[in-house]
């Protein structure tokens, strides 16, 4: 037998226990996904999150690596969600003058959008025989991951399932929004960004920033406000619906 093989096996055992591998894999997968995204001229269907996740799941599955082991490395990337959320205040501030003028329309739209997102998700799942836990995990799917997980826990959903549904919602919105806007002839950058931020949180916001700085800022605002609105409204809605 080739003497190199057992050595490689030892190296694999060593590396698979270190966070370096999960972290490096995450960045490599994203680099490749982003390259592909650019090769497709930034087409929303070649979504970098979707492509990265597909690649990582395939690699982890093929090597029999548990998610928990992978996450020990990936958590360093995951952690940056916090400071990045805080940093959204800066593009938001750049739109301050416009925000002041539009405060009332934005607030009304926010409440309507927040309730629509939760009620429509639960209603469709219930109509198609989704279990109670699945329905409750779906309810906060339009708000950013950390808030959604907290809400799911409070209303009786599964936080880790919610995290996945949140990401899927983000990808769907990032891919689909342009078609909805084309159909409805929505042209204003602020409207395009705000609606996408309500429905598809941070992934929608990332997409909106690719369209324009203004759309991105309004998406960031919608994402932040919808996290707040849903955290306040959803526990109330659930207790109303369950009686």
């Amino acid at each position, binding site marked *: 037998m080739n003497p190199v093989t057992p050595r490689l096996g030892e190296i694999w055992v060593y590396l698979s226990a270190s966070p370096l591998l999960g972290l490096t894999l995450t960045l490599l997968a994203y680099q490749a996904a982003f390259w592909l995204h650019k090769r497709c001229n930034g087409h929303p269907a070649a979504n970098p999150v979707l492509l990265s996740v597909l690649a990582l799941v395939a690699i982890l599955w093929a090597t029999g690596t548990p998610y928990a082991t992978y996450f020990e490395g990936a958590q360093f990337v995951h952690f940056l969600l916090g400071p990045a959320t805080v940093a959204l205040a800066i593009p938001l501030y750049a739109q301050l*003058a416009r925000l002041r003028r539009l405060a009332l329309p934005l607030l009304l739209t926010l409440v309507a959008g927040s309730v629509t997102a939760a009620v429509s998700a639960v209603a469709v799942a219930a109509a198609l025989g989704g279990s109670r836990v699945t329905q409750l995990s779906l309810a906060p799917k339009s708000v950013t991951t950390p808030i959604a997980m907290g809400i799911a826990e409070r209303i009786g959903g599964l936080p880790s399932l919610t995290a996945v549904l949140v990401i899927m919602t983000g990808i769907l919105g990032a891919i689909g929004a342009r078609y909805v806007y084309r159909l409805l002839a929505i042209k204003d950058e*602020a*409207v395009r960004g705000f609606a996408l931020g309500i429905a598809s949180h941070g992934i929608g916001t990332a997409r909106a920033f690719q369209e324009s700085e203004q759309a991105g800022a309004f998406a960031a605002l919608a994402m932040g406000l919808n996290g707040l609105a849903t955290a306040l409204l959803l526990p109330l809605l659930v207790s109303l619906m369950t009686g």
Partner: protein
Amino acid sequence: MLLALTLLLVYQLLGEVIAQFFALPVPGPVIGMGLLFATLAVRGAVSDELRGTANGLLQHLSLLFVPAGTGVMLHFGRLADEWLALVASLLISTVVTIAVSALLLRALMRALMARGGADAGRES
């Protein structure tokens, strides 16, 4: 860059402390975002350093969702059992939410403009 990153973490920490102290249902980073926004609004300016660091972080915002998204592998069983309800719910709800929000906001902005709200809603 280091100073800006420290500032962002301090605001996140402040947000986290406030969320815990008042037992708020909103996560710390979102409160931190609100606090930083309020600070900038009061000060009336953003330093170039802070703007640069924020742009750097936000330019690849998508990357930060990849670790949580990969958690999909924990739920293959449930996804296989209830895929129709899940896919239909996500798809319909996302499209309906985008459409309702966009149509309502556009209508409200037009109403505001019609009421003579000067140049409300128009590009500044």
